[in-house]
């Protein structure tokens, strides 16, 4: 159908023309219009407290105490259950967040702007591995780290970024892909490149030697640091592709631990949701699939621009880490995703595939026709609040989201 082909061409072109730049780090309430006290932004499509999974509830309780809206976790849970907290998806506020995806007023957020289309997206800092709020952690160690990020790390990053000026992100991603990252479960190369970009500026702007050391050490010890930059980058790339009539290209994929949601260009901000699936993967010692929480996080936005599971061939090490098999299997994942996408990104290439561009622009029609759902690389959270990450794996987006989207586009175009 020519209308759809033209619309998809336009959607892909807008995604590929993006020029995402990292501009700043600011408190969330300064950047995110409409974000206010006693409001929590979460990962995934809309969800109410009574439907939230364990880690999401744990993170919500922790965020309430962190913001000083309650004195302890028990009180915080009562407030959340009693309707005293407003919940909204990050995506409704131009934001994204990995796993539970908590975003509240005082958390520092990265500000990424797509210079080509002038739209922005935001994401809180990555806290590192172990017991962290994004996996539902909420004890004093978790909250103290968030306080340090708010009071020390965020302001230092802001000063450093003013010193460097806007950082061009596509080239960092291109270098990371060549160095073995796929930008979802492996970000060690991009995090290292980012550290090289920022290290001199941090040293130049900081007035305290210990603070300088702590800030640089925090980035250096966190292999996933760049994920929280890659995610808003990806969102700034797909948002301009929203609202092209007839386009069947996916503009967002996300999960809240209970439901998976997608948005499609031709249907604008409408969500198509279905129950999330369980990731299949490898578990840390002492844990098994019995401990695992279902799929969660806004991080699947990176797959939406051809990274993560779509760029598995760039990252054989990830294939092993997420239990997806041998390096040759990694290439098969990328080839398969090429069957459900409308093009490739020539700026993000994979050496192991003779420099083919990452498959980009998921077409809901092709997903339903082939029966091949998008592959997402993901961390696995413990099902109980407060425990943290227990493994990593691969998960499929539920097919029902895509069949609903196909029907909605058909209806809009008067096709039955």
């Amino acid at each position, binding site marked *: 159908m020519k209308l*759809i082909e033209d619309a998809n061409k336009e959607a892909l072109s807008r995604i590929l023309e993006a020029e995402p730049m990292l501009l700043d780090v600011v408190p969330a309430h300064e950047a995110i219009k409409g974000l206010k006290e006693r409001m929590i932004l979460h990962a995934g499509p809309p969800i109410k407290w009574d439907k939230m999974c364990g880690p999401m509830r744990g993170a919500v309780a922790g965020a309430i105490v962190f913001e000083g809206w309650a004195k302890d976790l028990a009180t915080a849970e009562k407030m959340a259950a009693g309707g005293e907290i407003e919940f909204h998806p990050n995506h409704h506020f131009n934001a994204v967040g990995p796993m539970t995806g908590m975003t509240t007023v005082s958390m520092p957020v990265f500000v990424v702007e797509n210079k080509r289309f002038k739209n922005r997206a935001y994401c809180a800092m990555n806290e590192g591995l172990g017991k962290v709020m994004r996996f539902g952690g909420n004890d004093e160690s978790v909250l103290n780290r968030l306080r340090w990020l708010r009071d020390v790390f965020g302001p230092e990053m802001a000063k450093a970024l003013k010193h460097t000026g806007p950082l061009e992100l596509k080239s960092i991603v291109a270098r990371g892909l060549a160095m073995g990252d796929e930008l979802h479960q492996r970000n060690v190369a991009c995090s290292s490149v980012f550290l090289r970009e920022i290290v001199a500026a941090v040293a130049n702007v900081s007035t305290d030697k210990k603070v300088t050391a702590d800030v640089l050490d925090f980035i250096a010890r966190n292999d996933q640091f760049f994920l929280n930059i890659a995610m808003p980058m990806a969102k700034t790339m797909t948002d301009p592709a929203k609202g092209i009539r007839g386009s069947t290209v996916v503009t967002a994929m996300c999960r809240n631990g209970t439901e998976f949601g997608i948005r499609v260009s031709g249907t604008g901000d409408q969500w198509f949701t279905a129950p999330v699936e369980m990731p299949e993967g490898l578990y840390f010692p002492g844990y098994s699939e019995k401990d695992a929480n279902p799929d969660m996080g806004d991080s699947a936005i990176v797959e939406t621009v051809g990274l993560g599971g779509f760029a598995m061939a760039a990252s054989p090490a990830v294939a092993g880490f997420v239990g997806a098999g041998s390096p040759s299997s990694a290439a098969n994942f990328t080839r398969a995703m090429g069957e459900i996408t409308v093009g490739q990104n020539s700026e993000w290439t994979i050496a192991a595939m003779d420099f083919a561009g990452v498959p980009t622009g998921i077409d809901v*029609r092709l997903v339903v026709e082939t029966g091949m759902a998008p592959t997402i690389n993901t961390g696995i959270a413990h099902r109980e609040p407060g425990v943290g990450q227990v493994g990593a794996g691969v998960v499929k987006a539920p097919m029902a989201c895509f069949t609903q989207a*196909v029907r909605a*586009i058909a209806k809009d175009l008067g096709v*039955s």
Partner: protein
Amino acid sequence: MSGQENSPIQKLLSSEVKVVNVGLEGFVKDLQDCNVQVVHVEWSPPAGGDPEMAALLAKLGV
């Protein structure tokens, strides 16, 4: 009998068999266990075999 022995199928099975398996992957392992060379091709019916959805997709240009 002699006619069947010379049939194309008899000739095929009396030489080394190389198999292309389309669809269900379960057959691949059985053949590999018998040391038969096999290449697997992933395939499933369009739209998971849902004729109404397949027809809709055809109208949408797939």
